[in-house]
């Protein structure tokens, strides 16, 4: 019959089977076992189970262990000594980059190409068309730059310096809207020069009064600039300045001022 304190003694039996009981504890356990049939049965069961467990047959037969050994060997040391083909990582990366660069060039055009003016034509209706090599961002243009006719007329005087010095043709210049007056490199007119000493300046040869250059408007239409004149063009050669702010495909800003020389239907352009 199981007593109330038998749980304690069952625990002691378990320790005794593992030789974990001191001599005093073993004596006390023996005294309890002499008077408790339940705990004696538990001890017999525990001991029998211990005997059966310790004598369980081996499950690992030599063939199975040899096969397992081969599996492990293949995955460890044999794999370690197996020659390995050199990985073609860097050549593959270089080839991929080259292919991407070529595809980008085909798709977007030459990546190294900078925005540039490729052609200038005179269009009907007093218009001048500046054609660029690629479409421009609309925000990169100054919008519409209108040069008032008065400013063009004031500069419409013979020039004694600057890039076109020595020519007898009348000149006109255009500029950005913010500055009002066009910016152009030139010397002041002779009548406005300061006078040093008393002498009579040599009279300049008489020249015909050039016709005034009409004011003009610069506007953007796609990948071209259109310069529209407010009035008829003079017959003689004249030049205007067309300011533009370009952006390349990487977003870098490129400021350009084009000097356009117009002479009776022919147009030439210089970059300032």
């Amino acid at each position, binding site marked *: 019959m199981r007593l109330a304190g038998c749980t304690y003694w069952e625990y002691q039996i378990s320790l005794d089977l593992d030789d974990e009981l001191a001599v005093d504890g073993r004596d006390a356990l023996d005294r309890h076992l002499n008077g408790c049939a339940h705990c004696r049965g538990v001890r017999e069961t525990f001991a029998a189970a211990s005997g059966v467990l310790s004598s369980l047959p081996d499950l690992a037969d030599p063939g*199975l262990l040899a096969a*397992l050994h081969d599996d492990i060997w293949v995955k460890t040391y044999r794999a370690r000594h197996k020659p390995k083909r050199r990985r073609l990582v860097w050549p593959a990366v270089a080839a991929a980059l080259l292919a991407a660069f070529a595809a980008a060039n085909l798709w977007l055009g030459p990546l190294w190409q900078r925005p540039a003016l490729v052609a200038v034509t005179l269009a009907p209706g007093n218009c001048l068309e500046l054609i660029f090599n690629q479409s421009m961002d609309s925000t990169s243009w100054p919008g519409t730059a209108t040069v008032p006719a008065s400013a063009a007329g004031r500069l419409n005087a013979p020039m004694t310096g600057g890039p076109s010095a020595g020519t007898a043709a009348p000149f006109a210049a255009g500029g950005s809207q913010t500055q009002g007056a066009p910016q152009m490199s030139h010397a002041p007119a002779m009548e406005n020069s300061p006078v040093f000493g008393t002498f009579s300046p040599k009279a300049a040869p008489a020249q015909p009064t050039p016709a005034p250059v009409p004011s003009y408007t610069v506007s953007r239409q796609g990948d071209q600039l259109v310069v529209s004149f407010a009035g008829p063009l003079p017959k003689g050669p004249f030049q205007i300045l067309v300011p533009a702010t370009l952006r390349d495909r990487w977003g870098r800003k490129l400021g350009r001022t084009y000097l356009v020389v117009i002479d009776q239907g022919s147009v030439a352009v210089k970059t300032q």
Partner: protein
Amino acid sequence: MRCRQRKHAVAFSEDEFENIYRTWAPALFNFTARLVGRQEARDLVQETFLRLFRTPAPPDRVKPWLYRVAYRLCIDHHRRKKAAPAHPVSELPEPGDPGANPETVYLAREAMARFLAAFRNLPPEGRALLLLREKDNASYREIAAITGITVEAVRSRLYRARAALHRALAIEEAK
């Protein structure tokens, strides 16, 4: 074609690894097979030795290291499967003496079958503790190192496993 060796270091030489395998693989396979079954034991023992191969530094004591890894693999396996292992019939003892009484042999096989059935009904942690203690003669300290519990916990859990086996055997006897 240019070739190169794999460069990662291993903790053991080939001979050392071979000796470890020959020394501990049979016992480890027995321990694992009684926890998860023979088929799964093959995979888990293989995984245990592969982890030993990949470990960067050699463990101080190989046996507890191997058993600890195998024990954790078995516990993880039980958590995934939630199924009792299928013990092969060949685990039952064969008649040792051809001239023995067939009735005695039959009764012995029946008793062993009942014992194994009761043993299979124990939780895997209890089975592992009993196997380590009774079959592999591991000390409490070694069992604690393998299972990751304290020595006091080993004492009490071993008692609980024995008591559970005692109850399971009583149930099997009553069937």
